[in-house]
């Protein structure tokens, strides 16, 4: 505003107070100042209190060697790695299990929801009983019961259940599957030396598959003919991958790694620990009940006429569900699903009760070793907040996308 404005243009205080917009702004401004003041006062109090108690926050410990050994990790980590890296190990454990739980509980939840609204009395009531029982049990209890009563009751490693057991001349016991209270060991393909070469063949196969898929999509867009794009793309990928495998002759790029019985544990192959599996299956079981109800709300939110019209057109029950009802149900189900998915990452922190080294468990260990409780709790709260925000941003984006298609 220029200072040369005539006086009459400057509104009087009285007239300003009568202006709705100004009044609203004034109230919000006063409230804002009050909040800032209170927060400032509280934090300065906290800081001065911490100083007198000799607990001044400092994050230097994060770069120091942690001295921690972690049982389950997705990245290289040993006790000389830093505390920050230990935190990363925990974070990756939390994220990986959360993502898997989201995927599996969505699939299983949808299945349960479909059973729940089925016209078959038995199927519908089994689904109902499942939902009602699981929803009314505290998750911690479910996990403890699952872990104690099921996984810990499996035979010990010496009497493990084994499939495809062979004993070599040196007395080494191998099997394709070893199940004990330690967890599950499975024969698993592991890359060998020639895999470095084979990677390029796989990359080429992926590109080829993508090209096939795009080509078929474009053609079907032009001709209106139904395209089996996904099927052909998969076939193209498999064909190239198989040809590559054969061309490499005896140098197989992947080798089946069989678990071998050691003195204490089995070694080799894929290892799924009892703790991981208890947490994973417990969470899937628990979350699916909620997911099922969200999906049921969505499905029943679709007007009955839609289903009837689809059936009248000659579509079967499942195809009507898949093509007509579920796409519309998704729109209703996504907002409640978002809250359920947000809960999953936080619920994994209960893994600490059954010995799974998730983010929260490792945080506890770091607090113990360094005594930096306040710093770690602030840090871990920020991490959970970031994870939740990321999930919710993604779900909001997906929600918008689905909504746009409808209109």
């Amino acid at each position: 505003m220029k200072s040369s404005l005539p006086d009459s243009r400057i509104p009087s205080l009285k007239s300003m107070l009568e202006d709705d917009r100004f009044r609203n702004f004034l109230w919000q401004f006063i409230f804002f100042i009050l909040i800032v003041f209170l927060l400032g006062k509280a934090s300065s109090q906290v800081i001065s209190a911490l100083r007198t108690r000799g607990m001044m926050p400092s994050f230097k410990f994060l770069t120091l060697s942690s001295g921690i050994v972690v049982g389950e990790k997705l990245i290289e980590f040993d006790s000389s790695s830093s505390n920050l890296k230990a935190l990363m190990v925990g974070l990756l454990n939390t994220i990986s299990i959360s993502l898997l739980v989201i995927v599996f509980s969505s699939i299983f939840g949808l299945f349960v929801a479909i059973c729940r609204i089925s016209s078959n009395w038995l199927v519908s009531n089994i689904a109902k009983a499942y939902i009602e029982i699981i929803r009314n049990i505290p998750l911690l209890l479910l996990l403890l019961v699952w872990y104690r009563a099921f996984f810990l009751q499996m035979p010990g490693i010496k009497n493990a259940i084994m499939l495809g057991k062979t004993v070599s001349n040196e007395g080494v016991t191998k099997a394709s599957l070893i199940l004990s209270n330690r967890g599950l060991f499975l024969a698993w393909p592991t890359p060998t030396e020639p895999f470095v070469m084979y990677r390029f063949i796989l990359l080429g196969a992926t590109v080829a598959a993508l090209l096939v898929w795009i080509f078929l999509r474009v053609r079907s867009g032009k001709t209106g003919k139904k395209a089996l794009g996904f099927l052909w793309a998969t076939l193209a990928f498999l064909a190239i991958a198989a040809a590559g495998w054969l061309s490499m002759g005896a140098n197989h790029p992947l080798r089946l790694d069989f678990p071998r019985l050691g003195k204490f544990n089995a070694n080799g192959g894929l290892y799924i620990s009892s703790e991981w599996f208890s947490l994973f299956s417990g969470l899937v079981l628990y979350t699916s009940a909620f997911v099922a109800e969200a999906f049921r709300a969505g499905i029943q939110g679709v007007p009955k006429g839609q289903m009837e019209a689809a059936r009248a057109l000659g579509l079967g029950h499942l195809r009507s569900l898949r093509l007509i009802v579920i796409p519309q149900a998704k729109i209703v189900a996504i907002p409640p699903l978002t809250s359920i998915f947000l809960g999953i990452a936080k619920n994994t922190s209960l893994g600490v009760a059954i010995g799974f080294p998730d983010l929260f468990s490792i945080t506890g260990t770091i607090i113990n070793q360094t005594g930096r409780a306040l710093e770690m709790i602030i840090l871990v709260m920020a991490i959970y907040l970031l994870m939740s925000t990321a999930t919710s941003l993604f779900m909001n984006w997906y929600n918008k996308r689905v909504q746009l298609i409808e209109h």
Partner: protein
Amino acid sequence: MKKAVSLGLLLCVMIAGLFAADTAKQGSTLETVKKRGYLIAGVNSSNAGWSYLKSDGSYEGFEVEFARAIATAIFNDPSKVQYRPLTSKERFTALQTGEIDVLIRTATHTLTRDADLALSFTTPYFYDGQSFLVRKDSGIKSIEDLDGATIAVLTGSTGEITLSDIMASKGLKYKPLLFESLDELKNAFFSGRADAWTSDKSSLAATAATYPNASDYLTLETTVSKEPLAMAVRHGDDDWFDLVQWTLNVLFYSEEKNITSANVNQVRSSTKDPDIQNFLGAKGQLGSMLGVSNDWAYNIIKKVGNYGEIYNKHLGPKTIFNIPRGLNVQWTKGGLFYATPFK
């Protein structure tokens, strides 16, 4: 659940922060305790023999007796204690924030805890050391046999870090299985999920003894760490520290001089030794120098007993634990306990 607890702790810190100015003005811990009318002690709630919650809601155990002794020194009444059950992880924060007056929870005295956490530790009341509990039929005889084993350990203990240090120094590989609650750990270990469980020898002995098939298990001979268990208070209140330390000295000194709850009356009336007369408050002003009554030591011995009595009651040969005293005897018998003079 644990998250809630930790968040609660954080809130406590913040609330404590808001009222920090007030608590600072309230003066010494001893005054606060006297005004409140009872002592608040941080303890374990599930360590058999040491400190555990009984079915009637009261606490019992070796460590609980120390809290009772401090309460007796102040109030001449061992029951004037409120016990706060704490996990290993929570215990130091609870002490720092002023939620408890004294921490008596198998806490090992280390430099980090002393300096970085701003705590003061008394002289140890028990010299412990870490070892391993294994199944007898596993054939494990030494630490070297544990190469590749799964080892259960309580998170939040010094045992956790000692384990990784000792295994690294010997170049042995292992899989840790971390639990926050002792109950879950015991469940997993006794069902065979882990090959060994590492903790302080005393705790291993205590827990194995309560297990029905106790004879199937054995504690390895080797001791891999020094674990001097001591009581802790906050930095910055030396008067309070003195009282806690000298209460412990009373328990040591009375055992050294063979003064028990049974004979303390007789000793006080008949002794000619001026040191003992001073000690038991028959004359002198020792108690009032600490801010308590002059017959505080007499009261402690009369109502709680001397160190040996406490030990035998909870951990001694007549209990199921039967932990040998080892280094935990008076210096006159070749042990490490040495009460400084009551003069």
